[in-house]
């Protein structure tokens, strides 16, 4: 079975982001970019499926500028077999990404598509669900465990009150939550090998997909800042203040 994995290039999770002074967005010049952490988990899961003999080929896909090739090389170094970049300089939103992925799924006919549950830049948490809808496939979102047989995926999902297990007929879309696995670091030999793996570049037009944004960002601001309060000297002082000053207990 072929597995498609979607990866996004995002501002590294360790970067403290800055809102641009003119309120048009977040300053992404001269900051470190990495693969979205939830997508690393998606790649890792695909590689484990291949190691377990359940997947035959892993195709990593990304959408965005030329620099996304680095993100795809990371996926290849982790164990993906080949990569496809749908290159565009435009700001692409989840629905457009889902449409491009659907077009690729039509070409590649994977048995499973794995994505991160959300990207840590726009925090949308939409693309996997949208892709499943467009393909008419079932979805297993926020997965913390995945078991596959020939015809179905059994997915344990992280839901608000605990865990839920669903069974999905294949082909299906899975989105990853944090506890699904711990992604590996690519070894140096694998990083070298990844440079020789095939990486195709397409345009949205090649796929017949309109990637024009549907949502317009009017402005981006800093969140209201909380002021630091006071230090208290003792537990009795704390309880007294919570009772009499803050009146919350």
């Amino acid at each position, binding site marked *: 079975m072929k597995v498609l994995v979607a990866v996004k290039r995002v501002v590294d999770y360790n970067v403290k982001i800055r809102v641009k002074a003119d309120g048009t967005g977040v300053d992404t010049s001269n900051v470190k970019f990495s693969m979205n952490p939830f997508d690393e988990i998606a790649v890792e899961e695909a590689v484990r499926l291949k190691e377990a003999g359940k997947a035959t080929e892993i195709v990593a896909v990304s959408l965005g500028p030329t620099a996304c090739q680095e993100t795809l090389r990371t996926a290849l170094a982790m164990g993906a077999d080949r990569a496809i970049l749908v290159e565009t300089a435009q700001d692409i939103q989840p*629905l457009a990404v889902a449409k491009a992925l659907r077009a690729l799924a039509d070409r590649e006919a994977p048995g499973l598509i794995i994505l991160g549950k959300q990207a840590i830049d726009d925090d949308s948490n939409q693309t996997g669900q949208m892709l499943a809808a467009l393909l008419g496939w079932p979805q297993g979102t926020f997965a913390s465990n995945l078991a596959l047989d020939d015809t179905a995926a059994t997915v344990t999902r992280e839901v608000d009150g605990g865990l839920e*297990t669903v069974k999905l007929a294949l082909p299906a879309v899975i989105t990853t939550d944090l506890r699904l696995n711990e992604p590996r670091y690519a070894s140096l030999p694998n990083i070298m090998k990844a440079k020789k793996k095939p990486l195709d570049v397409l345009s949205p037009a090649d796929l017949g997909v309109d990637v024009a944004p549907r949502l317009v960002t009017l402005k981006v601001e800093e969140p209201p800042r909380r002021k630091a309060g006071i230090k208290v000297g003792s*537990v009795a002082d704390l309880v007294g203040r919570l009772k009499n000053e803050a009146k919350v207990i």
Partner: protein
Amino acid sequence: MTSLVIAENDGQTLKAATLHAVTAALQLGGEVHLLVAGQNARPAAEAAARIAGVNKVRLADDALYAHGLAEPLSKLITEIAADYTAILAPASTFGKNLLPRVAALLDVAQLSEITAVISADSFVRPIYAGNAMATVQSQDRIKVITVRGTAFEAAKTDGGQASIETLSAAGGGGNSSFLDQQLSKSERPELTAARVIVSGGRGMGSGDNFKLIDAVADKLGAAVGASRAAVDAGFVPNDLQVGQTGKIVAPELYVAVGISGAIQHLAGMKDSKVIVAINKDEEAPIFQVADYGLVADLFQVLPELASELSK
């Protein structure tokens, strides 16, 4: 204009998160309808009809909707979507799983976790784990929106007299089925609905030491939470996690114990009304957002706090 709120329910009752989504829908103006889809869900529909401000409840009572699976539910919603200018749901795992699927079937964008309604087509939502707030405008004919519960008051659960209309099931699904669930059992209030939360972090040292947190939480009638570090260390299960990758909370009182205050944790609790931080590291970032900070060893403070609260 008319808005449809998807009610999160278990047939018998509505989940509290639904009430916050209703408030956001009321702010859009126009009529507000509620969709209650579930199995034997008449009691939930009756509760929905009593919510202040709701004009109509549409009840789809069928085994297909017993477990809130997105595949059949999205089909049902898209069949009635033409009646609405906005479709809203709580930004719970239920709503987040469902609404993007609905939006894609309608070929419209989705707006995730809005925290404010600016106008009928413009909304504020957090990006970059809440480190920036974006005001976005939708250009679609139907706005499909998940609502962050902590940003909107709960609608009143009485005073409404909406009519209940029955919908027939729309079919669909069949390629997914519910097997089982393992819900955490607790006498305590739910994290996202609690008035007081006591959370522990990596500083707790072990899962066993969370007993000290439990003792304080018992005195306060509080929910117990944890930082991602405490979850990653295996001290407590993931459903206790407060933060960008866990639950977003905004209680009256949030007590952070042995939590350093990583950005990802702050994103989940910084809208709390009063924040107390207990940490032995004076430099911990959590003190920068705390109203009351106590620099001390939590293993001494927690038992003392429990006994002080008994007085």
